[in-house]
């Protein structure tokens, strides 16, 4: 088993507007992308568990043109509100980095 960071050239999180958080995993090559995509290890259930959501609000999109997987979730707190920890949403991908992938 490899870790996700070993097969990705970029793992990032960012606001998609103040009310959504979006994660991008861009893979090093097409072959490993297809392997991870088809194994469905990046899935709504994992995100729901990690970010304490219901799976229904998690959007997972495979983007073949960039060998990338995009996941979008409702922001836990509106960007910049009193309880927010990360205005840009840029450091919310930590738990993804060491995810085990085939």
């Amino acid at each position, binding site marked *: 088993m490899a870790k996700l960071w070993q097969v990705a050239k970029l793992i990032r999180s960012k606001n998609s*507007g103040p009310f959504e958080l979006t994660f991008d995993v861009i893979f090093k090559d097409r072959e490993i992308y297809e392997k991870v995509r088809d194994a469905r290890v990046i899935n709504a259930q994992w995100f729901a568990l990690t970010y304490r959501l219901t799976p229904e609000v998690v959007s997972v999109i495979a983007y073949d043109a960039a060998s990338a997987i995009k996941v*979008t979730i409702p922001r*836990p707190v*509106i960007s*910049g*509100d*009193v309880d927010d920890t990360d205005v840009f949403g840029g450091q919310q991908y930590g*738990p993804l980095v060491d995810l085990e992938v085939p």
Partner: protein
Amino acid sequence: MASEIRVLSATGILGSGFREETLRRAMALRPDFIGADSGSTDPGPHYLGSGETLFSDSAYKRDLRLILLAARAAKIPAIIGSACTAGTDGQLERLAGIAREIAREDKLSFKLATIASEQDKGYLKKKLRERKITPLANAPVLDEAVIDRSAHIVGMCGIEPYVEALANGAEVILAGRSSDTSIFSALPVMRGFNPATVWHMAKILECGAACVVLRKYPDCMFATVTNGHFVVEPPNPEYRCDPVSVASHNLYENSTPYELVEPSGVLDTLHAKYEAVSDRAVRVSGSAFRPAQRYTIKLEGAELAGYQSLIVGSVRDPIILRQFDSWLGGLVAAVKDRIRAVFGDGIERQYRFDVRVFGRNATMGPLEPETGIGHEVGLLFQVTAETQALATALAKSVGHIAVHYPVPEWSGLITSIAYPYSPPEIARGACYRFNMNHVVEPASPLEMFRIAYENV
């Protein structure tokens, strides 16, 4: 109609910069206009709430001066959207003031159009009553009270106000809040180019050099658009695009790479093709544009959330760190007791006291799955109250109670927190919250925007 139109994006966000040499190279490619975005909600609600700007006037002036000099020399339009971060009327006027100053100093003259996008509260309440305002994903509740207490509300314009200003001979257009892509789509759509090709080009160009393989610093980007495709190629010779770098840009700050929602329709990139035409240029084709059933304008609003005072500190004592949770829990209770003793029982409803623990869960808050801590932790005490005076008064009590909060192992008075500053408390000022994520159906695309012309 010309067979192609050439588009220059000066930078991803006005004020962040671009290389003068790159602009010179790009101008040699004879662009039909220069565009630049000047705003974003990304840095948070402060800029919409307070009217302050992300960059300094000096930074805006440096970038805008080079753009205006190049555009006037080539006699092509310069189009700037989302003036000075949030696009409020005050921010638009600030950018217009900078443009006038540049014109005076550099002896430029041009017809200036400003597009104001701040919204009238009475108009929005009427639209709300007529059920012409609808929520987008995760929108908070919007009622008339929310509209009333908003510090500023802006509408994000589409291409139509730009097209109107261009048709009236504007040579420089400064807009309040605008969709990023409308800045780059207006002139090409006005000249009759295929909207699907144009909107996709605009999405790739709106962040300047962000679509290159490795962006080391902000810079210009260039596209040549025909009806069936566009070619994107960085004017900076140190940069290159490849099909993956260009396709990847659709991921950025967007909830799906396949759709981009605009006031007048949706760009659908599901069947887009990205092909290398050289080792640094990419041809993009195959997108579709689906016109909207109803024309909508997105609203952005911000309201005051309170005033804050902060205290930064750190803890290094292993004895305290071994019992960190119970020590901190006791500290918070002691702070609240002291505040009640000083300010009376009624104070409970007038403030919030929060602690951020760096080294434990400051980044992810309650979602943090890791439980351990290291050899030290950073503390941020945060007091939120209705006035700055109250927030600071409370923070002074917090600072004193916290710094001496004991652990059972040590007898006598201890100083358990390292404060780097004197005084420890820092007045952060007003803090704001985004309070709407909705769209309005205007009677026409121009109804919510006010265009003014002047000869500068």
